[in-house]
């Protein structure tokens, strides 16, 4: 991959665990990737694959206990985030690294005015006084396409629709002009037309402000339209990393291939059942030996059930965690 100088963020062997009654759940288990400046990186996976935990780990927002970052290294613009004192982490959060969450209905504080929630960020990080912060907040609301910004400022979140709330979230996240924006399923809770608008907005603002973006989603359609590179996660591990176009054309991992096949195709013949990956996502507290996808994998052989697969480089920048990565890649 790229040399370090161009990376805004590098995650190296991140391991995040949760202590539960059933034992230690390795929600993220040895995840590594880099994010280049100005790049949009997609992280896809099913629920429980560890994609959200990865992003929360970068923000140091894992609740301790029960959670714990058990190992690895996260470097943001030369700073080691995991060894940083909490006070300094807070100075980065919201200012240089910002985050948008999945559910705009619950992610805004229902008890506080929009203005309070927007202005507190810039007052904290940019030292704005009340008036500056208010002006800036109105500017940000207009930027995200809220036309009656002045009136909305004194309203409460429950007066806004889901799409509007997510716009407010985006305005809030971008108000300090962060270098890195983590969007954790920003459109999952919205209906499809609003989804497209919000994604378009993120894309446009990202280009204008030069922000690097990590886009977490389970929607492959979103990934295709938005990202430069994609990480596919499964059971807390990176199963495949590839440039977006290549991943869609030539996946080198049976899991990715399964995901791509399960996207419904408009030309799909009626009466023929849609494809789905057989079985359920694994219980990350009790992973099988060998490859964690093996029980569901149509291509699995004996070696998959006994030996942990290698992380193979297929092409420059295209890696896959599979015993048969080369074969799968060639089949495509």
């Amino acid at each position, binding site marked *: 991959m790229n040399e370090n100088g161009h990376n805004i963020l590098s995650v190296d062997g991140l391991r995040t665990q949760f202590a539960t009654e059933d034992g230690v759940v390795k929600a993220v288990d040895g995840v590594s990737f880099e994010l280049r400046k100005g790049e949009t990186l997609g992280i896809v996976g099913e629920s429980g694959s560890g994609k959200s935990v990865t992003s929360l780990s970068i923000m140091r927002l894992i609740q301790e206990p029960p959670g714990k970052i058990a190992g690895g290294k996260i470097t943001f613009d030369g700073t080691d985030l995991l060894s940083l004192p909490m006070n300094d982490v807070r100075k980065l959060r*919201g200012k240089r690294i910002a985050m948008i969450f999945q559910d705009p209905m619950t*992610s805004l*504080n229902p*008890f506080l005015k929009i203005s309070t929630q927007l202005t507190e960020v810039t007052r*904290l990080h940019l030292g704005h006084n009340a008036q500056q912060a208010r002006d800036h907040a109105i500017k940000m609301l207009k930027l995200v396409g809220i036309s009656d910004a002045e009136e909305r400022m004194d309203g*409460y979140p429950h007066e806004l629709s889901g799409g509007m709330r997510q716009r407010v979230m985006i305005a809030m996240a971008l108000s300090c002009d962060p270098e890195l924006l983590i969007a954790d399923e920003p459109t999952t809770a919205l209906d499809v037309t609003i989804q497209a608008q919000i994604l378009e907005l993120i894309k446009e603002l990202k280009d204008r402000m030069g922000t690097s973006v990590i886009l977490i989603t389970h929607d492959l359609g979103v990934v295709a339209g938005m990202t430069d590179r994609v990480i596919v996660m499964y059971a807390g591990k990176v199963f495949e990393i590839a440039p977006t176009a290549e991943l869609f054309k030539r996946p080198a991992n049976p899991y990715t291939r399964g995901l791509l096949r399960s996207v419904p195709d408009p030309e799909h013949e009626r009466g023929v059942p849609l494809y789905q990956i057989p079985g359920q996502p694994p219980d990350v507290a009790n992973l099988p030996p060998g490859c964690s996808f093996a029980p569901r994998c149509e291509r699995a052989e004996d070696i998959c059930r006994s030996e942990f697969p290698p992380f193979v480089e297929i092409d420059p920048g295209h890696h896959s965690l599979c015993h048969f990565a080369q074969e799968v890649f060639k089949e495509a």
Partner: protein
Amino acid sequence: MIPMALLVVSLTWGLIRIAPGNFYSTERKLPAAVEATIRAKYGLDDPWYKQYATMMSNVVRGDFGDSLKYQGQTVNEIIWRHLPYSATIGILAYLFALIVGLGAGTYAALKQNSILDFGPMSLAMFGLSIPNFVLAPVLVMIFAFWLYALPPARWGGFSSLILPVITLGAIYAAYIARLTRAGMLEVLRSDFIRTARAKGLNDRTVLLRHAFRGGILPVISFTGPALAALLAGTVVVEKVYALPGLGDIFIKAVLNRDEPLVLGIVAFLSILIMAFNLIVDISYGFLDPRIRYE
């Protein structure tokens, strides 16, 4: 609210009537002539609906008449004379309960599942399980008879208020602490708190600005009735500490079958309770914009 108060008064009146005996059924039998005069004066020979109508029309005008026991004093005078004692203790106990309860509850929520959580919460459980007629003598024994630090009873100066206030407020402090902890834990788990943290706000701001309002909502709905109960429910405490408050006079009135006085106090307290509930409902709207009325 007003129909409710009238209903309470009616029920109380009915209950006093149903209970056997009355103010005049003393140990020593009154001469028949005397009793007849009294019955005539208070209209006790009238049919019940007529008595009820007379009573109601007086009550509606805020006139509860004279006390039977304390001759020549109106019920209103007696209530206003004794209210300040109960109110002082009640309000101080309320403040004590709020400060201790909110503080301990919030603190415990922040230190969830640590010794700093279990400590205050066990104490709260302890406080909830001890009836105040047990707590009062224990406190008196320790602070008055062993340490000689505080007076054991009677009205007189601030130091004489400390033990009654603690005795009265302890249960409420414990209850508020538990409600606060539960409410705060619920709110601290919510998504918008994560958003607030993601903005880089420090723990104090997250707690005070973002979590507190939502976290104390369950406490608010409890505090209205609690304040009324504190003003009204000082009976035991006033008895133990020999304080001349409303609770004390209420018990005496019931024992004496002093019907106008009982009615007056009941009406007064029920209006008080309803008023506090109303205040709570209104303050809900200020705390939670989602339930603000148009």
